[in-house]
Protein backbone atom coordinates (compact mmCIF):
# COMPACT_ATOMS: atom_id res chain seq x y z
CA UNK A 1 0.00 0.00 0.00
CA UNK A 2 1.06 3.59 -0.37
CA UNK A 3 3.23 4.91 2.35
CA UNK A 4 1.49 8.18 2.84
CA UNK A 5 1.09 9.99 6.09
CA UNK A 6 -2.63 10.03 6.59
CA UNK A 7 -3.72 11.01 10.04
CA UNK A 8 -1.44 13.98 10.54
CA UNK A 9 -1.75 15.29 6.99
CA UNK A 10 -5.34 16.35 7.29
CA UNK A 11 -5.36 20.01 8.23
CA UNK A 12 -8.17 21.82 6.49
CA UNK A 13 -7.26 22.78 2.97
CA UNK A 14 -7.59 26.43 2.06
CA UNK A 15 -7.74 27.73 -1.50
CA UNK A 16 -4.44 29.55 -1.18
CA UNK A 17 -2.61 26.24 -0.82
CA UNK A 18 -1.78 24.18 -3.93
CA UNK A 19 -4.89 22.43 -5.18
CA UNK A 20 -2.78 19.49 -6.36
CA UNK A 21 0.41 18.71 -4.57
CA UNK A 22 2.60 15.86 -5.79
CA UNK A 23 5.44 14.81 -3.50
CA UNK A 24 8.22 12.43 -4.50
CA UNK A 25 5.95 10.06 -6.40
CA UNK A 26 7.36 6.76 -7.60
CA UNK A 27 5.54 4.29 -9.78
CA UNK A 28 6.71 0.92 -11.07
CA UNK A 29 4.99 -1.44 -13.45
CA UNK A 30 6.43 -4.84 -12.78
CA UNK A 31 10.10 -4.14 -12.36
CA UNK A 32 10.11 -1.07 -14.54
CA UNK A 33 10.14 2.27 -12.76
CA UNK A 34 8.11 4.78 -14.76
CA UNK A 35 8.13 7.59 -12.23
CA UNK A 36 11.26 8.09 -10.17
CA UNK A 37 10.36 10.70 -7.63
CA UNK A 38 8.23 13.42 -9.15
CA UNK A 39 7.08 16.52 -7.28
CA UNK A 40 4.94 19.41 -8.44
CA UNK A 41 2.48 21.93 -7.10
CA UNK A 42 -0.49 23.30 -8.95
CA UNK A 43 -2.31 26.33 -7.64
CA UNK A 44 -5.98 26.91 -8.08
CA UNK A 45 -6.79 28.48 -11.43
CA UNK A 46 -3.43 27.59 -12.95
CA UNK A 47 -2.95 25.85 -16.25
CA UNK A 48 -0.02 23.44 -16.24
CA UNK A 49 1.43 21.73 -19.27
CA UNK A 50 3.52 18.64 -18.92
CA UNK A 51 5.66 17.95 -21.94
CA UNK A 52 8.35 15.46 -22.70
CA UNK A 53 9.29 12.57 -24.96
CA UNK A 54 6.92 9.62 -25.12
CA UNK A 55 7.46 7.07 -22.42
CA UNK A 56 8.68 9.69 -19.98
CA UNK A 57 5.82 8.99 -17.58
CA UNK A 58 3.62 11.99 -18.33
CA UNK A 59 0.42 10.05 -18.74
CA UNK A 60 1.17 7.87 -15.75
CA UNK A 61 1.64 10.96 -13.64
CA UNK A 62 -1.75 12.43 -14.39
CA UNK A 63 -3.40 9.04 -14.08
CA UNK A 64 -1.97 8.90 -10.59
CA UNK A 65 -3.60 12.22 -9.73
CA UNK A 66 -7.09 10.81 -10.01
CA UNK A 67 -6.11 7.40 -8.68
CA UNK A 68 -6.63 5.49 -11.93
CA UNK A 69 -3.12 4.26 -11.22
CA UNK A 70 -1.93 3.62 -7.71
CA UNK A 71 1.44 5.10 -6.81
CA UNK A 72 4.18 2.86 -5.49
CA UNK A 73 5.63 5.46 -3.17
CA UNK A 74 5.06 9.10 -2.38
CA UNK A 75 2.08 11.28 -1.79
CA UNK A 76 -0.46 13.14 -3.89
CA UNK A 77 -2.76 15.62 -2.23
CA UNK A 78 -5.79 16.98 -4.00
CA UNK A 79 -7.34 19.80 -2.02
CA UNK A 80 -5.42 18.54 0.94
CA UNK A 81 -6.76 15.02 0.61
CA UNK A 82 -4.39 12.10 0.20
CA UNK A 83 -5.26 10.33 -3.05
CA UNK A 84 -3.66 7.07 -2.02
CA UNK A 85 -5.36 6.81 1.31
CA UNK A 86 -7.08 3.44 1.13
CA UNK A 87 -9.89 4.94 3.19
CA UNK A 88 -10.35 7.69 0.64
CA UNK A 89 -13.81 8.09 -0.77
CA UNK A 90 -12.90 7.59 -4.43
CA UNK A 91 -16.11 9.21 -5.53
CA UNK A 92 -15.27 12.38 -3.61
CA UNK A 93 -11.96 12.51 -5.44
CA UNK A 94 -13.45 11.83 -8.85
CA UNK A 95 -16.00 14.57 -8.63
CA UNK A 96 -13.17 16.98 -7.87
CA UNK A 97 -10.91 15.76 -10.66
CA UNK A 98 -12.20 15.43 -14.20
CA UNK A 99 -10.26 13.65 -16.91
CA UNK A 100 -10.27 13.71 -20.70
CA UNK A 101 -8.56 10.93 -22.63
CA UNK A 102 -6.62 10.66 -25.84
CA UNK A 103 -9.13 8.23 -27.32
CA UNK A 104 -12.17 10.29 -26.14
CA UNK A 105 -13.67 7.09 -24.67
CA UNK A 106 -17.24 8.18 -25.10
CA UNK A 107 -19.81 5.52 -24.39
CA UNK A 108 -20.88 4.52 -27.90
CA UNK A 109 -24.33 3.33 -26.89
CA UNK A 110 -25.42 6.73 -25.60
CA UNK A 111 -26.07 9.98 -27.46
CA UNK A 112 -23.85 13.00 -26.91
CA UNK A 113 -26.31 14.47 -24.42
CA UNK A 114 -26.74 11.17 -22.58
CA UNK A 115 -22.97 10.77 -22.37
CA UNK A 116 -22.76 14.13 -20.64
CA UNK A 117 -25.69 13.41 -18.33
CA UNK A 118 -24.92 9.82 -17.37
CA UNK A 119 -22.39 10.13 -14.60
CA UNK A 120 -24.06 12.96 -12.65
CA UNK A 121 -27.31 11.00 -12.69
CA UNK A 122 -25.96 7.50 -12.10
CA UNK A 123 -23.04 8.30 -9.89
CA UNK A 124 -23.89 11.54 -8.12
CA UNK A 125 -27.62 10.75 -8.09
CA UNK A 126 -28.45 14.29 -9.06
CA UNK A 127 -31.82 15.43 -10.29
CA UNK A 128 -32.30 14.51 -13.91
CA UNK A 129 -33.89 17.75 -15.04
CA UNK A 130 -31.26 19.87 -13.40
CA UNK A 131 -28.49 17.74 -14.93
CA UNK A 132 -30.06 17.96 -18.36
CA UNK A 133 -30.21 21.73 -18.19
CA UNK A 134 -26.57 21.84 -17.21
CA UNK A 135 -25.60 19.33 -19.88
CA UNK A 136 -27.31 21.30 -22.63
CA UNK A 137 -25.47 24.42 -21.55
CA UNK A 138 -22.17 22.56 -21.60
CA UNK A 139 -22.83 21.16 -25.05
CA UNK A 140 -23.54 24.69 -26.21
CA UNK A 141 -20.35 25.83 -24.53
CA UNK A 142 -18.27 23.31 -26.48
CA UNK A 143 -20.11 24.51 -29.62
CA UNK A 144 -22.03 21.33 -30.35
CA UNK A 145 -25.56 22.65 -30.19
CA UNK A 146 -27.65 20.54 -32.53
CA UNK A 147 -25.56 17.43 -31.96
CA UNK A 148 -27.19 16.51 -28.65
CA UNK A 149 -28.91 13.47 -30.07
CA UNK A 150 -26.10 12.20 -32.25
CA UNK A 151 -24.30 9.05 -31.25
CA UNK A 152 -20.51 9.13 -30.86
CA UNK A 153 -20.19 7.01 -33.99
CA UNK A 154 -21.82 9.80 -35.96
CA UNK A 155 -19.47 12.52 -34.74
CA UNK A 156 -16.00 13.46 -35.92
CA UNK A 157 -13.04 12.92 -33.62
CA UNK A 158 -12.90 16.58 -32.65
CA UNK A 159 -16.60 16.65 -31.91
CA UNK A 160 -16.33 13.50 -29.81
CA UNK A 161 -13.46 14.98 -27.87
CA UNK A 162 -15.48 18.11 -27.10
CA UNK A 163 -18.37 15.94 -25.91
CA UNK A 164 -15.85 14.18 -23.67
CA UNK A 165 -14.77 17.53 -22.23
CA UNK A 166 -18.40 18.48 -21.59
CA UNK A 167 -18.94 15.10 -19.99
CA UNK A 168 -16.13 15.73 -17.53
CA UNK A 169 -17.26 19.27 -16.83
CA UNK A 170 -20.74 18.11 -16.00
CA UNK A 171 -19.34 16.52 -12.85
CA UNK A 172 -18.32 20.09 -11.85
CA UNK A 173 -14.71 19.24 -11.15
CA UNK A 174 -12.23 21.60 -9.54
CA UNK A 175 -9.33 20.27 -11.59
CA UNK A 176 -9.31 18.99 -15.15
CA UNK A 177 -6.75 16.54 -16.45
CA UNK A 178 -6.14 16.33 -20.18
CA UNK A 179 -4.17 13.33 -21.40
CA UNK A 180 -2.86 14.09 -24.90
CA UNK A 181 -6.36 14.95 -25.93
CA UNK A 182 -5.41 16.04 -29.42
CA UNK A 183 -3.00 13.25 -30.25
CA UNK A 184 -5.60 11.10 -32.02
CA UNK A 185 -7.20 13.93 -33.97
CA UNK A 186 -6.87 15.14 -37.52
CA UNK A 187 -4.90 18.39 -37.75
CA UNK A 188 -8.02 20.36 -38.74
CA UNK A 189 -10.00 19.28 -35.71
CA UNK A 190 -7.19 19.80 -33.23
CA UNK A 191 -7.87 23.50 -33.22
CA UNK A 192 -11.51 23.30 -32.22
CA UNK A 193 -10.58 21.20 -29.19
CA UNK A 194 -7.74 23.51 -28.20
CA UNK A 195 -10.03 26.52 -28.39
CA UNK A 196 -12.38 24.84 -25.96
CA UNK A 197 -9.58 24.05 -23.53
CA UNK A 198 -8.16 27.55 -23.79
CA UNK A 199 -11.54 29.04 -22.90
CA UNK A 200 -11.73 26.78 -19.90
CA UNK A 201 -8.32 27.81 -18.71
CA UNK A 202 -9.15 31.46 -19.21
CA UNK A 203 -12.29 31.06 -17.13
CA UNK A 204 -10.11 30.00 -14.26
CA UNK A 205 -10.45 26.20 -14.36
CA UNK A 206 -7.40 24.48 -12.98
CA UNK A 207 -6.03 22.45 -15.88
CA UNK A 208 -3.23 19.93 -16.04
CA UNK A 209 -2.43 19.00 -19.61
CA UNK A 210 -0.15 16.45 -21.13
CA UNK A 211 0.39 17.69 -24.63
CA UNK A 212 2.62 17.73 -27.66
CA UNK A 213 1.22 21.04 -28.91
CA UNK A 214 4.08 23.35 -28.06
CA UNK A 215 2.51 26.50 -29.40
CA UNK A 216 -0.60 25.84 -27.44
CA UNK A 217 1.39 25.13 -24.30
CA UNK A 218 3.24 28.38 -24.70
CA UNK A 219 0.04 30.39 -25.15
CA UNK A 220 -2.09 28.80 -22.49
CA UNK A 221 0.11 27.43 -19.75
CA UNK A 222 1.08 29.32 -16.65
CA UNK A 223 3.82 26.86 -16.00
CA UNK A 224 5.54 24.16 -18.00
CA UNK A 225 6.98 20.95 -16.64
CA UNK A 226 9.40 18.92 -18.72
CA UNK A 227 9.70 15.23 -17.88
CA UNK A 228 12.20 12.74 -19.13
CA UNK A 229 12.75 9.14 -18.03
CA UNK A 230 10.49 9.43 -15.03
CA UNK A 231 11.83 12.61 -13.51
CA UNK A 232 10.99 16.29 -13.87
CA UNK A 233 14.00 17.73 -15.57
CA UNK A 234 12.98 21.33 -15.28
CA UNK A 235 9.99 23.56 -14.92
CA UNK A 236 9.44 27.21 -15.59
CA UNK A 237 6.93 29.72 -16.92
CA UNK A 238 6.51 29.24 -20.67
CA UNK A 239 8.48 32.22 -21.87
CA UNK A 240 11.48 31.25 -19.83
CA UNK A 241 11.12 27.59 -20.60
CA UNK A 242 10.94 27.89 -24.36
CA UNK A 243 13.45 30.68 -24.83
CA UNK A 244 15.85 30.00 -22.06
CA UNK A 245 15.92 26.31 -21.26
CA UNK A 246 18.73 25.42 -18.92
CA UNK A 247 18.99 21.67 -19.02
CA UNK A 248 20.68 19.94 -21.98
CA UNK A 249 17.92 17.36 -22.27
CA UNK A 250 15.28 20.06 -22.54
CA UNK A 251 17.28 21.83 -25.21
CA UNK A 252 17.69 18.65 -27.21
CA UNK A 253 14.00 17.87 -26.95
CA UNK A 254 12.92 21.36 -27.93
CA UNK A 255 15.44 21.33 -30.73
CA UNK A 256 13.85 18.21 -32.17
CA UNK A 257 10.32 19.46 -31.80
CA UNK A 258 10.45 23.12 -32.75
Amino acid at each position, binding site marked *: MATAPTADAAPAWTPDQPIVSVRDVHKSFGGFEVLKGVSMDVKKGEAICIIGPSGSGKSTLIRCINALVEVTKGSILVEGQEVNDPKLDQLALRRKVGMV*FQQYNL*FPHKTALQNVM*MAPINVLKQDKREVEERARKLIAKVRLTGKEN*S*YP*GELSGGQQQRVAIARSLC*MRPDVMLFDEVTAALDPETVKEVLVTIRELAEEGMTCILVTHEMKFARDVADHIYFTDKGVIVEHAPPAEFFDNAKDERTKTFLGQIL
Partner: protein
Amino acid sequence: MEGAVADFGRSLYESTGINLTILYDEFDQKRFISGLGMTIYLSSLSLIFSLIIGIVGAWAQGSPSRVLRYSINGFITVFRNTPPLVQIFFFYFGLGAILPRVEDADGMMGPLFTNVQWAIFSLSLFAGAFNIEIFRSGIEAVPNSTKEAATALGYTRLGTYRHIVLPLAIRVCLPALNNNLVNLLKTTSLAYAIAVPEITYVSKQIWTDSQNVPTMMTLLLITYVSLVGVLVFVMNRWERSLAIPGYGQGGGK
Protein backbone atom coordinates in the same frame (compact mmCIF):
# COMPACT_ATOMS: atom_id res chain seq x y z
CA MET B 1 -64.15 -28.50 -30.57
CA GLU B 2 -64.71 -26.42 -33.66
CA GLY B 3 -66.53 -28.62 -36.09
CA ALA B 4 -64.98 -27.16 -39.22
CA VAL B 5 -61.41 -27.93 -38.22
CA ALA B 6 -62.33 -31.41 -37.11
CA ASP B 7 -64.20 -32.05 -40.35
CA PHE B 8 -61.23 -30.81 -42.31
CA GLY B 9 -58.98 -33.17 -40.35
CA ARG B 10 -61.19 -36.14 -41.04
CA SER B 11 -61.63 -35.41 -44.71
CA LEU B 12 -57.89 -34.87 -45.01
CA TYR B 13 -57.38 -38.33 -43.56
CA GLU B 14 -59.96 -39.92 -45.83
CA SER B 15 -58.81 -38.24 -49.01
CA THR B 16 -55.00 -38.21 -48.55
CA GLY B 17 -54.20 -40.58 -45.71
CA ILE B 18 -52.61 -37.77 -43.75
CA ASN B 19 -53.87 -38.53 -40.29
CA LEU B 20 -53.71 -35.34 -38.25
CA THR B 21 -55.47 -36.70 -35.20
CA ILE B 22 -54.83 -33.47 -33.34
CA LEU B 23 -57.36 -31.79 -35.60
CA TYR B 24 -60.30 -34.02 -34.77
CA ASP B 25 -59.37 -36.05 -31.73
CA GLU B 26 -59.96 -33.93 -28.66
CA PHE B 27 -57.66 -35.98 -26.45
CA ASP B 28 -54.76 -35.83 -28.90
CA GLN B 29 -55.34 -32.17 -29.46
CA LYS B 30 -55.28 -31.43 -25.76
CA ARG B 31 -52.07 -33.26 -25.11
CA PHE B 32 -50.38 -31.80 -28.14
CA ILE B 33 -51.21 -28.28 -27.01
CA SER B 34 -50.13 -28.98 -23.45
CA GLY B 35 -46.88 -30.44 -24.81
CA LEU B 36 -46.31 -27.33 -26.86
CA GLY B 37 -47.01 -25.27 -23.76
CA MET B 38 -44.53 -27.34 -21.75
CA THR B 39 -41.81 -26.85 -24.38
CA ILE B 40 -42.40 -23.10 -24.35
CA TYR B 41 -42.43 -23.12 -20.55
CA LEU B 42 -39.17 -25.11 -20.34
CA SER B 43 -37.51 -22.91 -22.95
CA SER B 44 -38.56 -19.59 -21.45
CA LEU B 45 -37.58 -20.41 -17.89
CA SER B 46 -34.27 -22.04 -18.87
CA LEU B 47 -33.58 -19.12 -21.16
CA ILE B 48 -34.09 -16.60 -18.38
CA PHE B 49 -32.07 -18.57 -15.84
CA SER B 50 -29.28 -19.26 -18.33
CA LEU B 51 -29.04 -15.56 -19.10
CA ILE B 52 -28.79 -14.76 -15.40
CA ILE B 53 -26.10 -17.42 -14.99
CA GLY B 54 -24.29 -15.98 -18.00
CA ILE B 55 -24.34 -12.41 -16.74
CA VAL B 56 -23.42 -13.20 -13.16
CA GLY B 57 -20.81 -15.76 -14.22
CA ALA B 58 -19.13 -13.44 -16.67
CA TRP B 59 -19.03 -10.76 -14.03
CA ALA B 60 -17.56 -13.14 -11.49
CA GLN B 61 -14.94 -14.22 -14.02
CA GLY B 62 -13.49 -10.76 -13.81
CA SER B 63 -13.40 -10.89 -10.03
CA PRO B 64 -10.13 -10.64 -8.17
CA SER B 65 -10.81 -13.91 -6.34
CA ARG B 66 -8.81 -16.72 -7.90
CA VAL B 67 -10.94 -19.40 -6.34
CA LEU B 68 -14.07 -17.91 -7.83
CA ARG B 69 -12.51 -17.56 -11.27
CA TYR B 70 -11.18 -21.11 -11.28
CA SER B 71 -14.47 -22.59 -10.14
CA ILE B 72 -16.33 -20.77 -12.88
CA ASN B 73 -13.83 -21.91 -15.49
CA GLY B 74 -14.18 -25.43 -14.16
CA PHE B 75 -17.95 -25.23 -14.36
CA ILE B 76 -17.80 -24.04 -17.97
CA THR B 77 -15.26 -26.67 -18.96
CA VAL B 78 -17.27 -29.51 -17.46
CA PHE B 79 -20.62 -28.44 -18.87
CA ARG B 80 -19.26 -27.75 -22.33
CA ASN B 81 -17.51 -31.09 -22.60
CA THR B 82 -20.07 -33.54 -21.30
CA PRO B 83 -23.24 -34.62 -23.08
CA PRO B 84 -26.28 -32.60 -21.99
CA LEU B 85 -28.28 -35.80 -21.71
CA VAL B 86 -25.77 -37.19 -19.23
CA GLN B 87 -26.03 -33.94 -17.30
CA ILE B 88 -29.79 -34.28 -17.11
CA PHE B 89 -29.54 -37.92 -16.00
CA PHE B 90 -26.87 -37.03 -13.49
CA PHE B 91 -29.06 -34.39 -11.88
CA TYR B 92 -32.41 -36.09 -12.18
CA PHE B 93 -31.39 -39.62 -11.25
CA GLY B 94 -28.17 -38.97 -9.41
CA LEU B 95 -28.90 -35.93 -7.28
CA GLY B 96 -32.65 -36.45 -7.31
CA ALA B 97 -32.20 -39.85 -5.68
CA ILE B 98 -30.00 -38.51 -2.93
CA LEU B 99 -32.08 -35.51 -1.94
CA PRO B 100 -34.58 -36.06 0.85
CA ARG B 101 -38.17 -36.74 -0.03
CA VAL B 102 -40.81 -34.33 1.12
CA GLU B 103 -44.48 -34.53 1.85
CA ASP B 104 -46.59 -33.01 -0.88
CA ALA B 105 -49.98 -31.32 -0.66
CA ASP B 106 -51.82 -34.64 -0.67
CA GLY B 107 -49.71 -35.99 2.16
CA MET B 108 -47.78 -38.28 -0.19
CA MET B 109 -44.03 -38.55 0.07
CA GLY B 110 -42.60 -37.23 -3.15
CA PRO B 111 -39.24 -36.11 -4.47
CA LEU B 112 -38.07 -32.64 -3.53
CA PHE B 113 -38.00 -31.48 -7.13
CA THR B 114 -40.15 -32.63 -10.02
CA ASN B 115 -38.69 -33.82 -13.29
CA VAL B 116 -39.75 -30.53 -14.86
CA GLN B 117 -37.77 -28.59 -12.29
CA TRP B 118 -34.75 -30.80 -12.79
CA ALA B 119 -35.00 -30.31 -16.53
CA ILE B 120 -35.09 -26.53 -16.13
CA PHE B 121 -32.23 -26.73 -13.65
CA SER B 122 -29.89 -28.72 -15.84
CA LEU B 123 -30.85 -26.98 -19.09
CA SER B 124 -30.18 -23.61 -17.47
CA LEU B 125 -26.78 -24.72 -16.27
CA PHE B 126 -25.95 -26.21 -19.67
CA ALA B 127 -26.92 -23.11 -21.64
CA GLY B 128 -25.60 -20.86 -18.87
CA ALA B 129 -22.11 -22.30 -19.22
CA PHE B 130 -22.10 -21.28 -22.87
CA ASN B 131 -23.64 -17.91 -22.06
CA ILE B 132 -20.82 -17.10 -19.64
CA GLU B 133 -18.29 -17.65 -22.40
CA ILE B 134 -20.34 -15.60 -24.83
CA PHE B 135 -20.79 -12.71 -22.43
CA ARG B 136 -17.15 -12.85 -21.50
CA SER B 137 -16.04 -12.46 -25.08
CA GLY B 138 -18.44 -9.53 -25.37
CA ILE B 139 -17.03 -7.96 -22.24
CA GLU B 140 -13.49 -8.44 -23.50
CA ALA B 141 -14.46 -6.58 -26.64
CA VAL B 142 -15.14 -3.46 -24.57
CA PRO B 143 -11.82 -1.61 -24.53
CA ASN B 144 -10.09 -0.97 -21.25
CA SER B 145 -9.96 2.71 -22.06
CA THR B 146 -13.74 2.92 -22.07
CA LYS B 147 -13.87 1.30 -18.67
CA GLU B 148 -11.16 3.65 -17.49
CA ALA B 149 -13.23 6.62 -18.60
CA ALA B 150 -16.11 5.31 -16.51
CA THR B 151 -13.83 4.91 -13.52
CA ALA B 152 -12.58 8.44 -13.97
CA LEU B 153 -16.19 9.62 -13.89
CA GLY B 154 -16.62 7.97 -10.52
CA TYR B 155 -18.40 4.76 -11.52
CA THR B 156 -17.78 1.80 -9.25
CA ARG B 157 -16.89 -1.59 -10.72
CA LEU B 158 -20.50 -2.67 -10.53
CA GLY B 159 -21.74 0.64 -11.91
CA THR B 160 -19.32 0.46 -14.83
CA TYR B 161 -20.49 -3.08 -15.53
CA ARG B 162 -24.16 -2.17 -15.39
CA HIS B 163 -24.17 1.12 -17.26
CA ILE B 164 -21.33 0.80 -19.74
CA VAL B 165 -19.80 -2.64 -20.16
CA LEU B 166 -22.95 -4.74 -20.23
CA PRO B 167 -24.92 -2.60 -22.69
CA LEU B 168 -21.95 -2.67 -25.06
CA ALA B 169 -21.09 -6.32 -24.50
CA ILE B 170 -24.67 -7.40 -25.21
CA ARG B 171 -24.52 -5.75 -28.60
CA VAL B 172 -21.24 -7.43 -29.45
CA CYS B 173 -22.33 -10.90 -28.42
CA LEU B 174 -25.94 -10.92 -29.62
CA PRO B 175 -25.28 -13.08 -32.69
CA ALA B 176 -23.54 -15.76 -30.62
CA LEU B 177 -26.18 -15.47 -27.92
CA ASN B 178 -28.83 -15.86 -30.55
CA ASN B 179 -27.28 -19.14 -31.66
CA ASN B 180 -27.00 -20.47 -28.16
CA LEU B 181 -30.59 -19.66 -27.27
CA VAL B 182 -31.79 -21.41 -30.42
CA ASN B 183 -29.68 -24.35 -29.34
CA LEU B 184 -31.25 -24.24 -25.90
CA LEU B 185 -34.72 -24.34 -27.40
CA LYS B 186 -33.75 -27.44 -29.36
CA THR B 187 -32.10 -29.02 -26.35
CA THR B 188 -35.34 -28.86 -24.35
CA SER B 189 -36.34 -31.96 -26.33
CA LEU B 190 -33.92 -33.90 -24.10
CA ALA B 191 -36.37 -33.49 -21.24
CA TYR B 192 -38.18 -36.29 -23.10
CA ALA B 193 -35.67 -38.69 -21.59
CA ILE B 194 -36.85 -37.98 -18.05
CA ALA B 195 -40.51 -38.14 -19.06
CA VAL B 196 -41.25 -34.44 -19.05
CA PRO B 197 -44.41 -34.20 -21.16
CA GLU B 198 -43.03 -31.69 -23.61
CA ILE B 199 -43.80 -31.68 -27.27
CA THR B 200 -41.49 -34.53 -28.34
CA TYR B 201 -42.84 -36.70 -25.56
CA VAL B 202 -46.49 -36.11 -26.32
CA SER B 203 -45.91 -36.48 -30.05
CA LYS B 204 -44.36 -39.88 -29.43
CA GLN B 205 -47.41 -40.81 -27.37
CA ILE B 206 -49.71 -39.62 -30.09
CA TRP B 207 -47.96 -41.45 -32.90
CA THR B 208 -47.77 -44.59 -30.80
CA ASP B 209 -51.50 -44.46 -30.00
CA SER B 210 -52.73 -43.30 -33.37
CA GLN B 211 -50.21 -45.06 -35.62
CA ASN B 212 -49.54 -41.89 -37.62
CA VAL B 213 -45.76 -41.72 -37.32
CA PRO B 214 -44.87 -39.88 -40.55
CA THR B 215 -47.56 -37.25 -40.08
CA MET B 216 -46.82 -36.54 -36.45
CA MET B 217 -43.08 -36.65 -37.11
CA THR B 218 -43.37 -34.05 -39.82
CA LEU B 219 -45.68 -31.94 -37.69
CA LEU B 220 -43.23 -32.15 -34.79
CA LEU B 221 -40.30 -31.04 -36.94
CA ILE B 222 -42.34 -28.19 -38.38
CA THR B 223 -43.36 -27.14 -34.89
CA TYR B 224 -39.76 -26.94 -33.73
CA VAL B 225 -38.62 -25.11 -36.84
CA SER B 226 -41.47 -22.64 -36.32
CA LEU B 227 -40.60 -22.14 -32.66
CA VAL B 228 -36.99 -21.49 -33.63
CA GLY B 229 -38.26 -19.12 -36.30
CA VAL B 230 -40.23 -17.14 -33.74
CA LEU B 231 -37.25 -16.98 -31.39
CA VAL B 232 -34.91 -15.86 -34.17
CA PHE B 233 -37.45 -13.25 -35.25
CA VAL B 234 -37.71 -11.85 -31.75
CA MET B 235 -33.95 -11.86 -31.28
CA ASN B 236 -33.42 -10.10 -34.61
CA ARG B 237 -35.95 -7.46 -33.67
CA TRP B 238 -34.12 -6.98 -30.41
CA GLU B 239 -30.79 -6.80 -32.18
CA ARG B 240 -32.15 -4.13 -34.50
CA SER B 241 -33.66 -2.14 -31.66
CA LEU B 242 -30.29 -2.12 -29.94
CA ALA B 243 -28.38 -1.03 -33.00
CA ILE B 244 -26.44 2.18 -32.45
CA PRO B 245 -25.97 4.54 -35.38
CA GLY B 246 -22.37 4.69 -36.44
CA TYR B 247 -21.37 1.71 -34.36
CA GLY B 248 -20.77 -1.92 -35.14
CA GLN B 249 -23.00 -2.95 -38.04
CA GLY B 250 -20.82 -3.88 -40.91
CA GLY B 251 -17.80 -2.58 -39.11
CA GLY B 252 -16.33 -6.05 -39.06
CA LYS B 253 -16.97 -6.85 -42.67
